């Protein structure tokens, strides 16, 4: 499949460019296909290529010293990843893995520099993209580093717990994130932390509270 100009039109990086400009940019873009589970970037390695997702979805994640994975973002068609290291010349800040079959469009740093010089509008677009990413990461970092989110998640679990008869509304991690005033990545991490502390058990369709009193203590401790 050749790189599609129609698709490039919808990419925030290239917003407002003419068809002729997109055709010239298309020349330096190369395509890369990935299978489910394949890694496209590894944290800490040198960054040479900016990637746009053409189809499918990838997850951007970091792995802690204990081997725990923290998802920072899910990148969907039209969105980019690896922007920061391409512009500051540093290593990949996180690893990136295909969640299913994925087609990526890559632009090498040297080519991107030429694009930026020839098309100043792209530089303005890049600023907006980077600002959006900084905002997302800012709230993520804030919540990941503050234990009070766990307290809030614990409170939501207690308030929504039923007796297993299905009488209580079921919640998604997204619902819990909205209630706790955080993002779903942080809810996922909080639930795993609560499971490690032995106060809940994560089952397929359920969250089982195994130690209600300990959970109550956690709410009290963080409020």
């Amino acid at each position, binding site marked *: 499949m050749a790189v599609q100009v129609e698709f490039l039109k919808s990419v925030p990086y290239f917003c407002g460019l003419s068809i002729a400009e997109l055709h010239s940019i298309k020349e330096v873009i190369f395509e890369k296909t990935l299978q*489910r589970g394949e890694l496209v970037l590894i944290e800490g390695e040198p960054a040479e290529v900016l990637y746009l997702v053409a*189809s*499918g*979805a990838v*997850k951007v994640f970091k792995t802690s010293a204990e081997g725990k994975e923290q998802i920072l973002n*899910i990148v*969907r*068609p039209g969105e980019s990843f690896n922007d920061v290291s391409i512009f500051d010349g540093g290593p990949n800040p996180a690893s990136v893995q295909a*969640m*299913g*079959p*994925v087609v990526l469009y890559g632009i090498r740093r040297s080519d991107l520099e030429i694009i930026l010089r020839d098309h100043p509008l792209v530089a303005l677009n890049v600023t907006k993209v980077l600002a959006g990413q900084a905002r997302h990461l800012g709230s993520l970092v804030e919540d990941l580093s503050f234990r009070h989110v766990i307290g809030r998640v614990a409170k939501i*679990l207690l308030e*929504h*717990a*039923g*007796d*297993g008869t*299905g009488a*209580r*509304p*079921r*919640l*998604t*991690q*997204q*619902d819990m994130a909205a209630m706790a005033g955080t993002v*779903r990545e942080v809810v996922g991490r909080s639930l795993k932390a609560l499971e490690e502390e032995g106060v809940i*058990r*994560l*089952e*397929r*369709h*359920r*969250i*089982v*509270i*195994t130690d*209600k009193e300990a959970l109550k203590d956690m709410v009290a401790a963080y409020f």
Partner: protein
Amino acid sequence: MFEMPVIDRAKCDGCGLCVSVCHCNILVLVDNVVTIIREERCVSCNRWCTQCEDVCPTGAIRWPLEIVIE
């Protein structure tokens, strides 16, 4: 047993992202709307997969959890 995942057909824009990430291959697009085939196979998926919900840009496919006290 609840039906999993839960789909809101009106919200689905047919982008197919959930279909592409589902490793149990139980999701397909029919008339540009996501549809579950072979529902029983999702039972074999990893605990806490929820990837279809994670990637959906419109919130059309959800994996709600029941919270119970043991």
